[in-house]
């Protein structure tokens, strides 16, 4: 079997994968095809990593679009459950517009499965969205 062919096939799959449902929903005009939709009961949000490639060992940001209500994003963190550690960086959450946020300062310093957690608050109700991200080498 040819390695070149195999690696080319691998590279066709997106660099960030998730067990969450990938969606173009929320706002088709502004959300890219690499976005991930995260759901928690009747609430949902869409995240888009920027840049979308080579996330290992490089600072990147996330755009978060709140879809269904007036929640505000209060916290974003990521851990590697299998390794027992989180990121070495504390992301900063900036509100860009109503229901739209940018999170700066994320860095996945290892390939593998990272558990991303986004916490939101709406009228005293806190919601925790989580998604496993497979970060490939």
């Amino acid at each position: 079997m040819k390695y070149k062919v195999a690696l080319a096939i691998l590279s066709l799959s997106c660099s960030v994968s998730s067990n969450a449902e990938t969606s173009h929903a929320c706002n088709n005009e502004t959300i890219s095809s690499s976005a991930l939709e995260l759901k928690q009961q009747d609430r949902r949000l869409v995240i888009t990593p920027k840049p979308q490639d080579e996330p290992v060992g490089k600072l990147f940001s996330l755009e978060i679009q709140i879809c269904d209500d007036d929640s505000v994003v209060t916290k974003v963190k990521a851990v590697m459950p299998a390794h027992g550690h989180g990121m070495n960086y504390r992301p900063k959450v900036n509100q860009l517009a109503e229901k739209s946020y940018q999170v700066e300062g994320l860095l996945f310093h290892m390939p593998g499965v990272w558990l991303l957690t986004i916490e939101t608050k709406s009228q005293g109700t806190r919601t925790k969205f989580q998604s496993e991200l497979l970060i490939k080498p």
Partner: protein
Amino acid sequence: MKPFALVLFSLLVCFGFAQPVVGQEKVEFTVSELAFIQSHGPWPPKMEPDPSNRFSGEPSASAWGQQLFQDVRLSQAQTLSCASCHDPDRYFADGKARSTGTSTVDRNAIALADLRLNRWFGWAGQSDNLWAQSIHPILDRREMNATVETIVQRVRQESDLAANYTAIIGKGPKEEEPLRLLVNIAKILAAYQETIRTPTSAFDLMRTRLLEDEMISEDAAVLAGLKLFVGKGKCSLCHFGPNFTNGEFHDIGLPYFIESGQVDQGRYGGIRDLKASAFNRLGEYGDEPAESAAQAPTAFVSLQHRNWGEFRVPSLRNVSKTAPYMHNGTLASLEDVVRHYSTIDIERLHADGETILKSLDLTKQEIANLVAFLKTL
């Protein structure tokens, strides 16, 4: 991940790959292992100038920086230079466990090469840029032991230094504010150090042939060592990418103590020093636009208890030429390093730290294989 891609991925993992090698032995690489092998190149990667240093990438600056790197006038007693511990004839290390300036320091002189790929500098990452890191040994009382006043006086009074300063900086040293003069000298030193590069290695050539499915002639031991590195050993998780480092910090079970009663805080102290430094990328001495500096990792790095005893993951390029190893130079050979990971005492690691490290329990042959591979880097 799309269902189609998932199915293909699963199939490829199940089948794996067989790689014929010299003789009767075979080393097989899984798709996952091949992906890690691919991630270790290509070499060299593109290295952009340092945005925080306006002299970065300037040939005249790096040429003067090379002279300054070996200039003992940057030390108080005029007996030591940067090259005293970062010896060009020793791959910019010194071969000692702990280096000696005016007296013995706490850590090993890390080999200087490919520095534009660094996010952090020094074993504890106390600097987020190379020019700030270059100030440390000049002023450290156990290293070159100079003062700002000494450097200013010498650059102003020594005719060759003053002439070079004026020509390259564009301003006479007597017109310069003292601290800014020191920073400029450090930026010139950094402009030179950035030009120190490691060449294409035997591994790089092997990687290309492996990924292109060409016939390879490496020893079975080298390939078996590579498989351990990217597979069972999980070395690639921290020694990641083309430069064989993820640029971050880990506790690998080495002693906390420098000497009896004296602890090396490692990354914990490094972050505190970084945040307190006037010379980090968020400060006034860098040359990059404010919006660029605001995206520097220093703006986001977080101090955590587990940072105690963590040290920066070094690049493994040229590793066979830069013994002894680890931040305190306590491991004399690559065999010692591999044995350390093979028999690591996980009880020694932080209770709140990461759980990546397990003792690998390698056989004598596996240790030899891993060392054979490391020698190709």
